């Protein structure tokens, strides 16, 4: 068991941190960028690609860089630290499905362009109302139904869509500019973007074999996304906590710095406990994903549940310990709370994951993290 980054990984972290701390050097900069569509900086996106960050999880033969979950987690955490709004999660989710399910041609076509930053992907997986249905007519497939919210769905160059097939769940590539696809984009509360995407007999290309059930692949892709989101949250919590402790040290009330008030510093100590516990669990889940992917779905639930608790605790208390200033959009900390709330409700919130864990809690004695 080893929790330390090697030197290449440390270099990656420093490079990404260097880039993102320049791109998002202040709350104001981020507010400006998220104000107008597509809600992120195309320039930063390109720079991330140039740095190699976008191709990390994909095999070299597909056009990726052949790194693994740890490298992805490093990028995700740095994204979380500055709340970078770029569609990195969608790349992991949708790109991962292409890599797992796609034919050699599909992989060659998509992955390389994703790694170059030339293709923004989005995974449309959340049905609103009836499930999206895929229908075959000979070799031709079409989709009908509505997905919402689809994160970054309006900007995406290519949609990866889950749909109901006779075999269960199928995954399809859809050109969003094709006939029968209607996208309506909007802002999300954390400064991000989402869309309603309606399919009305839209042409779709199956990813891999459409007569097989892709449920497991989708579950694994989501687990990857959950774990990456967990790291993003860990980065965000770390900064929210440091910002709060810094404020307690410098802000004066009643003639003394706030950290004179033990009721406040003890609460900060409890925040630290929450943050550390979440960090441990998320890091472990990344290692499970790397070394025992067959346990990754469960590990991701464990990580997401812990992140949910910690994110609420830290998000709420960071504002409260700041007082009024924490409520304002000009100050950073409220944006962290907003983002942590969004992360909690993306790919299953804390109680959903806890319910999953609860449903299998009597299947084992102790939980052994080492396996």
């Amino acid at each position: 068991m080893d929790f330390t980054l090697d030197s290449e990984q440390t270099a990656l972290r420093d490079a990404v941190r260097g880039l993102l701390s320049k791109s998002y050097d202040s709350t104001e900069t981020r507010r400006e960028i998220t104000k107008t569509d597509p809600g992120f900086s195309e320039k930063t996106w390109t720079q991330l690609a140039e740095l190699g960050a976008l191709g990390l999880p994909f095999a070299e033969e597909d056009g990726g860089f052949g790194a693994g979950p740890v490298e992805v987690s490093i990028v995700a955490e740095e994204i979380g630290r500055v709340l970078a709004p770029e569609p990195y999660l969608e790349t992991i989710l949708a790109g991962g499905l292409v890599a797992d399910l796609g034919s050699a041609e599909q992989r060659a076509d998509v992955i390389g362009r994703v790694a170059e930053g030339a293709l923004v992907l989005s995974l449309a997986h959340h049905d609103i109302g009836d499930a999206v249905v895929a229908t075959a007519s000979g070799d031709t497939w079409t989709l009908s139904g509505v997905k919402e919210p689809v994160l970054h769905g309006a900007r995406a160059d290519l949609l990866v869509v889950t749909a109901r097939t006779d075999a269960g769940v199928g995954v399809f590539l859809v050109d969003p500019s094709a006939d029968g696809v209607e996208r309506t984009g909007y802002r999300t509360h954390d400064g991000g973007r989402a869309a309603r995407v309606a399919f009305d007999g839209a042409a779709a290309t199956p990813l891999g074999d459409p007569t097989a059930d892709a449920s497991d692949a989708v579950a694994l892709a989501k687990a990857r996304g959950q774990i990456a989101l967990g790291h993003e949250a860990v980065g965000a919590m770390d900064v929210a906590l440091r910002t709060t402790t810094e404020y307690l040290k410098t802000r004066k009330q009643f003639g003394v710095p706030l950290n004179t008030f033990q009721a406040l510093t003890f609460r900060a100590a409890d925040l630290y406990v929450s943050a550390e516990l979440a960090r441990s669990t998320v890091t472990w889940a990344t290692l499970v994903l790397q070394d025992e992917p067959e346990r990754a779905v469960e590990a991701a639930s464990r990580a997401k549940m812990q992140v949910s608790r910690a994110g609420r605790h830290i998000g709420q208390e960071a504002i409260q310990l700041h007082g009024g200033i924490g409520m304002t959009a000009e100050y950073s900390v409220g944006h962290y709370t907003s983002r942590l709330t969004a992360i909690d409700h993306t790919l299953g919130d804390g109680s959903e994951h806890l319910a999953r864990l609860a449903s299998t809690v009597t299947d084992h004695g102790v939980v052994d993290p080492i396996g």
Partner: protein
Amino acid sequence: MKLRLSEEDAAFREEMRTFFTTQVPQSIRDTVAARRELTKDQIVETQQILNAAGLAVPNWPVEWGGKDWTPLQRHIWHEEMQLASVPAPLAFNASMVGPVIAAFGSQEVKERFLPATANLDIWWSQGFSEPDAGSDLASLRTVARREGDEYVVNGQKTWTTLGQYGDWIFTLVRTDPDAPKKQQGISFLLIDMTSPGLTVRPIELIDGGHEVNEVFFEDVRVPAENLVGEENRGWDYAKFLLGNERVGVAPVGSTKRWLAAAKELAGDRIAGDPVLATRVAGLENELLALELTALRVVAHSADGKPHPASSVLKLRGTELQQAVTELYVDLAGPLSLASGAGDGSGVPDWARVSTPQYLNFRKASIYGGSNEVQRQIIAKTILGL
């Protein structure tokens, strides 16, 4: 001891319920029920309807439009209003500056301001908080220098809620900078917001909304007759006002209504999910406990002074408000992200507003005396710690 309302109080409750559910436009009540923002006009319209019926400022002295109600009746009025989704009379007018003017203002000031305040012909803003003061309100630095018949005001106020609608602002200003204690040398001054040198700057909050403002005073000249009570006694008036504010602030009725609405919105999900049902039942019980505590406090505050336990109401009331906003976000799940969705969206209205409301209500435990201040009051005043 008895459970039921007296016949008189039961009739009073019925009267209030009927009035609120029939005399206030449905569109306004629907907006409140949907937890959407009200327009200024809707707030003014409601208050004028209430005022016409004598129901806008029952807590004021009878000669200025108040009612000689028992504390329980006032409580019933307040609860029924919330349960009917009727927007309460503007707190700045009805609960804050009005009672202060009525208690401490000169006859001229009363006549000039009270009727217009009750009828919301004047929209009052509050100018208490300052950027460097926070919970330590008394360390305020806005200065009013006396020059002949005028005060010349310089400084800055902040967290001025709905200041963008304000016609007048009631302020705490420092009139004696040399007073030995920071609580001394403060005066309570009424300022016309159209005065030259006064500017209002919006503050965007984390929910994206604009409900608070900064107010800047640059050599703003204020007639000395706009002083309430005596010069340098402003801190006493402020304490009187803050005590009133705390009593009015336990939002039990509206939180109950939100929770009941959440049950309807969630439909079968609650009955099918024991964990969720347990959460809802727990919140419901905590709200009941709070409401009953409010009734107990009401029963023991007959002398008109705020009961120290009113800090319990503020503290727990805001915690439960926040817990219910959190429940809405969880019920909305992934749909809670779609705050910016427009008409074509399949995301229901309540889910779209869920996170902005959750974020917005983090303020509840900060403004109007933070929960830390309330704990301090409980520890010191009630427990003697």
